[in-house]
Structures are given as structure tokens and as C-alpha cells.
């Protein structure tokens, strides 16, 4: 049977029968694997990108020097190593002294990411691979302002640090691992590690953070982390990506979801394309099949014959697709090479396997049903042409295929929720689209019935009437078209909206300065300072420090928590109080404070910490605030936008509970670069306040987001390709019938204009229906994705209502135009012969 299958494959290939199907498969597998390959590499690259924020893959922090055993272990494992010492000290400039947060670094720091320096203040900066030379220091802008080092840096810019005099060599503009910590508040001075002993500043008992940085191959880093974890002594801890900054992590997780979503869309579209292509193939082979039955072939042998042919085709196409996918991702990788700063690691083999599996499943799930239909074709069809295949078996097979694909998608994207939404969305769209298409065709058919004529200006009525005449094929065509268009709209408009929303999360004028420790009586003068300096008055929040004591009367047992939770519990919390939550907080459980709670007391807690510490709505939490014990129930759980750069609180209480406690205030605001010196004037005017500069981390966050978005955009192209393929196969599905119709009409004396008008009115209606449906689909699915997966507020893009129908129209008109060329240029008999 197999040799015959392969022979048939050869014949059908030569007859051009299978080319579209093969192309659909190749593009499907290629897009899946290249999305897979590329997403895989980007994922790895993103992880590295994130490591920049640590300055390494792994950071070891301690309050004492690290033992040599650990240092040597890093090198022994082939990992790169660097060291930093962090402490706070007074720095004396020529005019004044300033408290500085000093970071002494060894050669090689940072292991991930780069430092950027400028030759003087406000000069353009550039990346550097160096660290400060011995005898020199780099200072940040705030430090330079404080010390009055604002001009050109020549050898006159000197500072004194402990016993030693240093030359200021550069202005440090960016430090990848400069996190935001309210304790890390003084301006920065960076120096060479080897210069530290001479200063005499670090002695036993001084408050110093010793950091060891390690980087290298992922497995090696993991292995080292495993080795080290059990050996950590008191005062030593590890920082890795898992506990990196929440706002960056949020960004990266979102990127992975986007990429996963795209891969899914590509697969779903491929499925549609494959089933369309197979449908066309089987329709063209119904007769051949029936004839072979008459010639004595059994159903089973025929089925295995065709199945063998398809399997052969599938394996070939999958292999080609995989190879093409690999090449494609190489091309993309080289395209983004200068966008994605980190070199992409080599792809793993998994995407190839996934691509192959998905290709085969696509073939089995979506080519098998029409083939199974072939099996049901009675031999009698040779004589009675109306005898078609039974439909139920096909439905079952499609359902099975859809289920398998769904499962595979979840496996590939590792995102159950996203997978459900995509699959659910598409099934729903499928159902709604077919009903709507059917209704619209019926309606059109009714509207023009009896008035159909081909003459002159009313030839279009004929076209509309024939729309309704071919209801079944046209429903299928509208369905496929609108699915393809939905995907494309989703990938262009909705994606654009989602990405724009994402980018807008970190708006240009997002707060870049925090002020902490504002005393109650300073609020009014501070606001006046702002208005005097034409800066918008920011929202100020009260802050009370408190310790978490008990839940539902049971005292907190520190030992029951894992390390991270324990650190949270051991520290004092920053509690706030207010009557209504800030706008960027969203209540996901419970309800806002109500009148009764405002009187009796209530707490609103952040989702993540509630999960970590096991708090639920209704739990009564006890806090110790300024020696007093306070107990109140949790009345709501809030979700925070960590990347909004707003002031965020884990716990917000009703004012009645905390208003009596010692309160300081905190605020965040946007300070344009041009007004940067204001920061210093603010510190001078209110010396007790601490002004934290977030602009560096903000810039970093924006950079990461932008890069990630660019990478995501590239991945989108593939899904768009798959969508176009669906469109193409959809258009092809009624091609044969249209060619015959045109040729016959021409033989009967129809002019070019008549044929074109009739077909165009049909195409216009089809395009408008499909495009309109697609616009609905894209909006609906986009809304679901925004609301349920990314938790963005979704803004409807009204252009999609124009773009959908316009795109549908364009597709069909281009198709009509292309078809018309072949229809009208060649003599009718030739057109008929080619069917």
C-alpha cells in the first residue's frame, strides 16, 4: 500500500493538487518552530536581560567578608566573578561635604549589563566596560551637584574620602544593579575596590555590605546556587532573578505571555489553513475516489491509500517546515541583534520537537476529517453526483483535532489560562461567525430575490443573489476569512493597543522621585515649594510603621514561613491609612471601605503578600504600632500595578485605626530632567526629608520594556503570515467554481464588465461581512486577553471597525482582480480545461 501511496503523492504533486496543502503545512510548522525557536531564545535572553538588574546571574550578599572557600568555588566552577563593597561615608569636596553611598568595585563588575558614564554633567553618556581606575572615582549627578562639580572634569575636581584624595574621572549615569531601596538614599560614589584599604574607612564593626557576583552558563550557575544554599551562614543571603525587582519581573512575564499568545495564534491559524486546503483537495477527489471504488478498491484500502499519501506529505512538509523555521529564526535573530543588546543564546531542540508534533497533529486533526469523509463516499456517486459524504464522522474528528491542538498549545505556551482564552475565543468566534454569516447570506438572498438580473447597473444584484445560492460554500468562506482577518486584526490593532497600553504603564512623566520622611507640619510648606517651582502638587500618603503580630488571635510564628516571607514578617511594615484607595489600586476581592468599617476599622491588603502570608478577607490581623496593639479585619484584597511607579502600600488601614500613631508622609512625583537641580534645593530646604532618585531605574525599565516589545513585534510577523495563508486558502476554496462560472458566462456572451460586476458585488458583500465579523472578533478576544490575562484596562480602538471591513474588502478585491486576470485573459475553453 505504501509504495502506491507515495506514487499517488508524486502524481498529485505533479498535478499541482497538493501544493497549497503542503505550503500550508510548511508555513504552519515553520511559523510554529520559528516562533518557538525564537521565543525560546528570547526567553533565555530576557532572563539574562533581567540578570542585568542584578549585575550578575547570582549575587551573594553578606554583612561580613565572604570566605575564600566560596570565592574559589565560583572560579573552580568556571563562573565569572566580581566583588563589590557597599558602605556609607562622608565625602569632602572643595567646598562642602556630602554623605555618599559608596560602592567599591573589582575589575569585571558588572558581570551582566553595562555601566554608562559621561565626561561631565549633562554631556551625552556612553557605555563602558571599565571600572574606576585606581585613584579615581565616578560620582552620580546628585553627588556632582552636591559637591559643585558641575563643569568640565579636569584634574582639579578632587574629593577626599577617608585618608585619601581622589580625582573625579567621570559622571556615572547608569548602574544596572542600582535598585531602589529607601536605605540606599545617599548619592553614589563608585571607586576601585583596591583603593578601599588605604582610605581606612572599612574597619570591623562598620556597616558594610559585601557582595560577590557570579555569572556563567545557566546549569553551572544553578549548580553553584544549589551548592551554596545549604552553606549560607548568618547574615549571608542569595539574590537571584526570582527575587529581582517586581516591576521588571511583571514586564518580562507579560512579554512571555505575549509571545506565547502569538505562537498559539499561529497554530490555530495553521489548523484552519490545513483544514481548508484538505477540504479543497478532497472535494476535487470525490470523483476519483468513487471511481476507484467502482474499480474494485475497498473503503479501507482506499482510506489507507489516501492516509498514507497524506502522512508522507506531512512528514516531508514538517521536516521542511522545521528547517525553514530554524533558518527564519536565524534571520530574525540577526535582525534584532542590535536591538536585543544581549547576544541570543543558541536555541534548544525543544521547539523543533514541538514543531514536528504540532505539524503531525495538525495534519491528523485537520486533514483527517475531510479524508474520513472521503471514506464515506459511496461508489454510487459515479452515477448519482449528489451523493456526498456523511457529515457526523467529520465533526467528531474535528472536535478531537481541536482538543488535541488545545492541549498542545497549553503545553507549548505553558499558559493554561491564555490557552483557554485563545481556544475558547476561537470556538466561540467560530460558532458566532457561522450563525452570523448564515443569517447575513439569507438576508441578502431575500432582499434581492426575483430582482436579480445581470444587465447594466444592476448586475450586482445577480452577484448578491448567487451569494445566497451558494450558502454553504460561502459560509465556509466567510468563516475562514473572518478567522484569518480576526487574527490579523488582533495581531495588528489589538496588539498595538495592548502594547501601547503596556508602554503607557510607564508614561514619560511617570514619577521619578520619591520623597520619604515628610513630617506632618511640613506638608503645607512642601506643597508651597512645589507650586513655587511650577511642579504639579503630588498626592501625599501617610505612612506608619508597624509590626505584624497575630492572625485571628494566633501569634505569628516566624518559623512557619519560608525565607522570603520570614524576612517580610521580621521587618516592620509600612502601613498607610486613607478612606478611598488610590486610583492605581484595583480591588480584586472584598469591597472598598464602607461607612461602618470607617468607624469600626478595616484593612485592605495587597494580593501577593496576602497569598504569601495566608491572609484572606475576613481574617483579623493584629499589629503593633508605636507600642499599641491594633486589630482589624481584612475587608479587601488589592492588586497593584507594580510598574506604575506610584507609591504602593502592602497594607492600607481605615484612618480611624492609625490616625493617632506617629505618622510621616511619602510622595512620588515627576521631575523633568531640566529641573533636576530642584532635587538638591529640596534636600537643602527640608534636610530631614529623603529624596530618592528613580530616574535611572525608570530609564532601565523603559529600555527593557521597549526591547521586549520590539522582540515581540517580530514574533508577531509569523502569526500574521499564518493568517495570510488562511486568507489565501479561504479565497482559493471557491476559486474553481468561480472560474467555471466566469468561463460559462463568457461563452454565453457576457462581457468582461458583466462578469466582473457580478463577481465583485459578491466579493464586496463577502468582504464586508467577513471584515465586520472579524472586527467584532478581534475586539472581543482583545478585550478578553486584556482583562483576563494581562489585567490591563482595555481601550477599544474604533479604527478596527473601519479596518476590519476595509481589510476584508481589500483581500477579496485583490483576489477578484488577480482572478479576473486569469479568468478574462485566456479563452474560456482553456479556463474550463484547467479545472
Amino acid at each position, binding site marked *: 500500500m505504501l509504495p502506491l501511496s507515495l506514487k499517488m503523492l508524486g502524481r498529485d504533486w505533479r498535478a499541482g493538487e497538493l501544493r497549497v496543502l503542503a505550503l500550508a503545512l510548511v508555513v504552519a510548522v515553520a511559523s510554529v518552530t520559528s516562533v518557538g525557536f525564537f521565543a525560546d531564545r528570547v526567553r533565555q535572553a530576557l532572563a539574562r536581560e533581567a540578570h542585568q538588574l542584578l549585575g550578575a546571574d547570582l549575587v551573594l550578599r553578606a554583612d561580613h567578608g565572604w570566605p575564600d572557600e566560596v570565592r574559589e568555588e565560583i572560579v573552580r566552577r568556571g563562573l565569572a566573578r566580581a566583588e563589590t563593597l557597599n558602605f556609607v561615608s562622608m565625602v569632602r569636596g572643595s567646598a562642602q561635604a556630602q554623605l555618599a553611598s559608596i560602592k567599591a568595585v573589582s575589575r569585571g563588575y558588572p558581570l551582566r549589563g553595562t555601566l554608562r558614564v559621561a565626561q561631565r554633567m549633562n554631556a551625552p553618556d556612553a557605555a563602558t566596560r571599565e571600572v574606576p581606575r585606581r585613584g579615581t572615582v565616578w560620582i552620580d549627578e546628585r553627588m556632582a551637584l552636591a559637591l559643585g562639580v558641575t563643569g568640565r572634569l579636569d584634574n582639579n575636581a578632587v574629593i577626599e574620602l577617608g585618608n585619601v584624595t581622589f580625582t573625579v574621572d567621570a559622571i556615572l549615569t547608569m548602574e544596572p544593579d542600582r535598585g531602589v531601596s529607601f536605605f540606599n538614599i545617599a548619592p553614589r560614589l563608585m571607586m576601585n575596590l583596591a583603593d578601599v584599604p588605604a582610605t581606612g574607612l572599612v574597619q570591623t564593626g562598620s556597616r558594610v555590605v559585601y557582595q560577590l557576583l557570579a555569572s556563567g552558563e545557566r546549569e553551572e550557575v544553578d549548580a553553584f546556587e544549589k551548592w551554596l544554599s545549604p552553606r549560607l551562614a548568618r547574615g549571608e543571603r542569595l539574590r537571584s532573578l526570582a527575587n529581582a525587582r517586581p516591576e521588571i519581573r511583571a514586564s518580562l512575564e507579560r512579554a512571555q505571555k505575549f509571545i506565547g499568545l502569538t505562537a498559539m495564534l499561529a497554530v490555530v491559524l495553521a489548523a484552519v489553513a490545513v483544514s481548508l486546503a484538505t477540504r479543497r483537495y478532497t472535494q476535487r477527489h470525490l470523483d476519483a475516489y468513487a471511481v476507484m471504488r467502482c474499480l474494485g478498491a475497498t473503503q479501507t484500502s482506499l482510506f489507507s491509500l489516501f492516509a498514507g499519501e497524506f502522512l508522507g506529505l506531512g512528514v516531508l512538509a514538517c521536516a521542511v517546515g522545521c528547517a525553514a523555521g530554524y533558518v527564519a529564526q536565524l534571520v530574525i535573530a540577526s535582525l534584532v541583534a542590535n536591538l536585543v543588546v544581549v547576544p541570543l543564546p543558541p536555541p534548544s531542540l525543544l521547539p523543533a520537537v514541538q514543531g514536528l508534533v504540532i505539524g503531525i497533529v495538525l495534519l491528523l486533526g485537520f486533514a483527517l476529517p475531510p479524508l474520513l469523509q472521503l471514506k464515506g463516499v459511496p461508489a454510487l456517486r459515479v452515477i448519482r*453526483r*449528489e451523493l456526498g459524504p456523511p457529515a457526523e464522522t467529520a465533526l467528531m474528528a474535528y472536535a478531537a483535532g481541536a482538543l488535541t491542538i488545545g492541549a498542545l498549545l497549553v503545553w507549548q505556551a505553558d499558559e493554561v489560562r491564555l490557552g483557554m482564552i485563545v481556544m475558547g475565543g476561537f470556538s466561540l468566534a467560530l460558532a458566532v461567525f457561522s450563525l452570523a454569516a448564515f443569517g447575513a447570506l439569507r438576508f441578502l438572498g431575500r432582499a434581492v430575490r426575483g430582482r*436579480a*438580473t*445581470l*444587465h*447594466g447597473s444592476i448586475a450586482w444584484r*445577480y452577484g448578491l443573489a*448567487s451569494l445566497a*445560492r*451558494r450558502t454553504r460554500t460561502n459560509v465556509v468562506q466567510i468563516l475562514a476569512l473572518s478567522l484569518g482577518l480576526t487574527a490579523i486584526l488582533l495581531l495588528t490593532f489589538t496588539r498595538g493597543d495592548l502594547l501601547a497600553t503596556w508602554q503607557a504603564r510607564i508614561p514619560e512623566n511617570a514619577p521619578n522621585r520619591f520623597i520619604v520622611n515628610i513630617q506632618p507640619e511640613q506638608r503645607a510648606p512642601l506643597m508651597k515649594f512645589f507650586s513655587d517651582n511650577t511642579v504639579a502638587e503630588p498626592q501625599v500618603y501617610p505612612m506608619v510603621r508597624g509590626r505584624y503580630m497575630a492572625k485571628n488571635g494566633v501569634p505569628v510564628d516566624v518559623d512557619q514561613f519560608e525565607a522570603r516571607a520570614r524576612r517580610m514578617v521580621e521587618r516592620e511594615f509600612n502601613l498607610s491609612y486613607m478612606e478611598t484607595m488610590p486610583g492605581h489600586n484595583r480591588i480584586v476581592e472584598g469591597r472598598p471601605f464602607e461607612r461602618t468599617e470607617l468607624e469600626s476599622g478595616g484593612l485592605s491588603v495587597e494580593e501577593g503578600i496576602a497569598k504569601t502570608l495566608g491572609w484572606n478577607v475576613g481574617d483579623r490581623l493584629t499589629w503593633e504600632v508605636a507600642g499599641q496593639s491594633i486589630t482589624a479585619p481584612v475587608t479587601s484584597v488589592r492588586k497593584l500595578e507594580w510598574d506604575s511607579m506610584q507609591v504602593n502600600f502592602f497594607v492600607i488601614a481605615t484612618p480611624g485605626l492609625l490616625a493617632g500613631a506617629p505618622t510621616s508622609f511619602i510622595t512620588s512625583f515627576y521631575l523633568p530632567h531640566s529641573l533636576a537641580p530642584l532635587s538638591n534645593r529640596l534636600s537643602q530646604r527640608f534636610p530631614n526629608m529623603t529624596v530618592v532618585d528613580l530616574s535611572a531605574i525608570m530609564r532601565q525599565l523603559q529600555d527593557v520594556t521597549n526591547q521586549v516589545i520590539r522582540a515581540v513585534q517580530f514574533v508577531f510577523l509569523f502569526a500574521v503570515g499564518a493568517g495570510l495563508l488562511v486568507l489565501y486558502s479561504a479565497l482559493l476554496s471557491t476559486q474553481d*467554481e468561480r472560474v*467555471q*462560472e466566469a*468561463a*460559462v*458566462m*463568457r*461563452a*454565453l*456572451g*457576457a*462581457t*468582461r*464588465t*458583466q462578469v466582473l460586476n457580478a463577481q465583485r458585488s459578491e466579493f464586496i458583500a463577502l468582504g464586508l461581512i467577513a471584515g465586520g465579523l472579524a472586527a467584532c472578533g478581534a475586539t472581543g478576544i482583545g478585550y478578553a486577553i486584556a482583562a483576563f490575562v494581562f489585567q490591563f484596562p482595555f481601550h477599544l480602538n474604533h479604527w478596527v471597525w473601519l479596518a476590519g471591513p476595509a481589510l476584508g474588502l481589500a483581500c477579496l478585491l485583490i483576489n477578484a482582480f488577480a482572478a479576473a486576470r486569469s479568468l*478574462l*485573459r485566456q*479563452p*474560456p*475553453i*482553456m479556463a*474550463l480545461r484547467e479545472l
Partner: protein
Amino acid sequence: MAAINANPILKAAGLSKNVPSGAQTLTILQDIELAVMPGEALAVLGASGSGKSTLLGLLAGLDAPSLGSVWLDGHELFKLDEDGRAVLRAKLLGFVFQSFQLLPALNAQENVMLPLELAGSRNAAALATAMLERVGLGARLHHYPKHLSGGEQQRVALARAFVMQPKLLLADEPTGNLDAATGAGIIELMFQLNAEHGTTLVLVTHDEMLARRCTRQIRLAGGRIMAG
């Protein structure tokens, strides 16, 4: 009846058709010279594969010749563009395909209405119904081609050609699928058209009886017209 000295309604000169076949070219028709006078009935005979259908397609301007010319009512067909030929066909010509070429999406009546609609006729439905009744399909107006038997499909195709009452009817084996009685009925219909409206008939056929009723016969063999 044919008017004396009238110009031929259909004329072919030096008509040849070659198709590439692998490395060689296959000659299907060679050097066909033919003139058909208005009102004449011409039978085209010949063995299977001798080129009859190809000739008919060329005469209707549905196919392009490799060499030679065809004049339809004095217009040189292949000097016109496709649209020009279509307009001429709409005005003069009825054509019956050997394989019928009914549109599967249209029912019998709609298929017959098609040429009327193309010409902007106001009462297409009534004319189509009347013609279908004349070919014995009054009861199958709303049936789709795939539900019709081969002979019924052929009669729909004939009705589609007759309904325009063309000046020239080109039919490829119009009775090929019909039993003797129905075939005779169709033949009657064609010659009635011929008699009433002076419709010129060019009929490809294997049916000697039909051929004998025609005013003239030509016989094709190997792509050439044989004497007689």
C-alpha cells in the same frame, strides 16, 4: 432558407491548432477551410479524438487557434479582444458544450435564465420556463444539476442555448446522451428553430440519422477535413 449570394455567416480559413506535448507539439487541427451559409445545417462527423470539439470551440471563439482566422457574420473573431468576441456571441451564438457546463449553484431554470439575464431580458423566468417545457423538463425547473440525470442535464444545456433564439447554434453532440425518442424530439426542436428563424446549425454528432437531416456534412480525421 439560405439566400442566394449571401455572405457566409461562419467562415474559417487556414485554421490550425497545435498544443505542446512534452518536447513535441501535437497537431489537433490542420488547415481547416470552411464556410457556412446562413440557414444551413452542417454536421461535423469524425472519430473520437479527431478534433471535432476543438474545431467547434474555435468557431465560437472560445479557444484561440495557432494559425488561421474565423469570421463570424463578417467579423474576424481573433482580431477582436475577448470582450468583442463575447459581445458577438451574445448577439449571434448559442453553444452547447459536450460536457454541458451547467453551473452547479444554479437550478435548471436559473441556468437557462443566465443568457437572458446577461442580455437584460425583462421576462427571463417566463422564457426559461417555456423553453424547459419544450425540452420536456417542465417539472424539473428548480432542480440542481447534480440531481439531474445526464440526459436531463444535456437538455438543460440545450435549452440554455435555444432560449436566446440565436442566429447560429453550435452544439457538441446534442443528442449524445439521449434515448432515441427524446433525441428525436430535440432534433425536431433544432430544425424547427432552423426553419422558423433561419437559425444556422453546426452540429457535432456521431448520429448518422441526425447527420443526414443536415444540409451538409463534413468529416474530420486526424485534424483535417476529409473530402465529401
